[in-house]
């Protein structure tokens, strides 16, 4: 395994006495595509929320590309290069698809109050941002929708928009929460192709996924959580043949274990 881009230690979070996340160590290698799997309520999304600052940790530290990010607010974590998407995509409904993309570009001079008033000082940068936005829209196949309100997109298109938008933010690590949930098979194929592309762009990907076929087809490292704890990790084959993992999934299916809501 190459050097890790993200290392998290002793991350814990409880809700009303229930320990929802209890991860001793979580590591992501630079350039890898890591799948985070586990039965419903395993704490995967909560773990995502903690790492990206959307949920306050009880304890824990994590270091991303040499910078400590624990306790930082979400926008600071995104600026550091760790950008996430959401399980239910958050399209900015009453903004155009293109504006959704342009918004995400980092370091925009025109985002400061006084500078925004002097159009000349940000016009050039805005044009560059627009070019990149269009390029990425072509990449996710939404170029024709650029002028539409994002609220008119289908669920799958919103997932694609979110992926493109996340890339607009210049991340080094993208964290995708169930990128293919609720997406039709055709679009799923496109999405998976795009996610695989990301490695070629020098990016690292962590994604939460339920569909084992998806996991098998694109991930090169799999981490399995159950009841807030990492119970196994390794290659897809190693993890899916691990008895603890099978037990966690079956236990869940047979309703033999109490589970925590994520």
């Amino acid at each position, binding site marked *: 395994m190459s050097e890790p881009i993200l290392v998290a230690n002793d991350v814990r979070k409880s*809700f*009303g006495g229930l320990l*929802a996340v209890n991860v001793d160590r979580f590591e992501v290698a630079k350039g890898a595509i890591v799948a985070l799997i586990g039965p419903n309520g395993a704490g995967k*999304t*909560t773990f995502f*929320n903690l790492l990206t600052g959307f*949920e306050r940790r009880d304890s824990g530290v994590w270091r991303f590309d040499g910078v400590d990010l624990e306790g930082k607010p979400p926008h600071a974590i995104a600026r550091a290069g760790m950008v996430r998407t959401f399980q239910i995509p958050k399209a900015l409904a009453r903004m155009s698809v293109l504006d959704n993309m342009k918004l995400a570009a980092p370091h925009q001079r025109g985002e400061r109050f006084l500078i925004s008033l002097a159009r000349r000082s940000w016009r050039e940068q805005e044009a560059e941002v627009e070019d990149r936005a269009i390029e990425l829209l072509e990449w996710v196949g939404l170029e024709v929708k650029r002028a539409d309100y994002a609220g008119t997109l289908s669920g799958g298109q919103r997932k694609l928009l979110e992926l493109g938008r996340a890339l607009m933010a210049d991340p080094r690590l993208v964290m995708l929460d169930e990128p293919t949930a609720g997406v039709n098979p055709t679009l799923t194929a496109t999405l998976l192709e795009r996610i695989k592309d990301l490695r070629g762009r020098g990016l690292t990907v962590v994604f939460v996924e339920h569909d084992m076929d998806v996991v098998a087809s694109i991930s090169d490292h799999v981490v399995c959580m159950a009841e807030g704890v990492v119970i196994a990790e390794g290659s897809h084959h190693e993890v899916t043949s691990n008895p603890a993992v099978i037990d966690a999934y079956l236990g869940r299916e047979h309703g033999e274990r109490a589970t925590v*809501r*994520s």
Partner: protein
Amino acid sequence: MRIQRRARAVAASLALGVIALALVAGPAAAGDNSVPGQQPEPTTTTSSPEAESTAISARLIDNTTPNVKGIEGARIVVFQKGKKIGSATSDADGLAVVPLPGAGTYEVRLVASTIPDGVRLTDPDKIRLPDVIVREAQQKFVIFPFGKGSSGGGASAFDRLADLAGAGLRIGLIVAVAATGLSLVFGTTGLINFAHGELLTFGALVAWYLSSSGEGAGITLALAGVIAVLFGGALGFGLEVGLWRRLRARRTGNISMLVVSIGLALFLRSVFQVIFGASPRAYDQYAAQKSVDLGPLDIQPKGLVTIGICAVILVVVALFLLRTRLGTAVRAVTDDPDLAESSGIDVQRVILAAWVTCGMLAAAAGVLLGLNQSVEYDMGFKFLLAMFAVMILGGLGSPFGAMLAGVVLGMAFEVSTYWIANDLKTALYLGVMIVVLLVRPQGILGIKERVG
């Protein structure tokens, strides 16, 4: 057309409140050529020659006798910025009317030497009322109560605090009753109803027209109050069926509904003003009562009755919520509408029940408020923020919290005036509410929402 149908439906529902009022006001308006809102009020005005005129009407009442009577022959003088505006001497009913040149802030003084022997002001400090604010075309009523005067010899601090606590308990319970209704609706629908104050006013006005307009049914206030509560329930029903249910069906967001409720409040309040007029009035019965002495506490019998009625209402509502099927369903919908829906509860019916209850509670609170203070077209609106405060303090959507918070806040509110200026007490409770919202948005009793 769908839009037209909707438009008609909404208009019809709006009209409901007005019609309900019109029905009550009907006999008064049709009786003679007098205009609604200007009926001469036998107890307070002598003849009302020109109801449009701006004036201060002072009423001098003697609380020492079992039957309250006016004090005749005392002189009041009205000043504005030190300049004398006019004066009048009280008639046999204890009434003295000073016409004014227009709206403004006036000072009303009672000339001490003209006070008849054998009586004295309940509160000697109140011989001068410095900031009487009079609106255009308003007949502003001020009262000079006479009596033995517990404070005549300087009441003890303990007595004063006890009296303030008593007043606080009374107002706090009334607000608790009203806020419980507000809370029921918020809990079941998520709507913060800015028109809730108008539901209070509605109840108070209905009771006034039935009991005290002189041209209405002329029934006793107790009966009128009960009828007003039924009308309040009907108004709640009408608003839910005619307006809110339709808006929910159109998937109108909570913020939009909040704005709609503001429009509704402006509309209803103005209609009340047109019908009832701008001046405050009192119910004929129990207008001025002699206080009874309960240890350190001096309280009017109507105050005691108010406390009793409020307590009974709150217990009944609590039993309704805890013991009846419908009440349980209301609580279930408050906790989790989706879950309730999927477990077979008819959410629309539950919300309807919440609205009817809300209308009844608000009307009851309005009648009691009118009894203890005065009846006015914007009396409910003045208490709107207090009701919000109580609802928030008690935990949004938690009726039990609202009950407790009403009492706590009401007492704190009145007792605080022992230390801080009277005109700042409203600011105080609003401040308390803001702090509570910031540090404990779930309220004092609410359970912290689980995030995630």
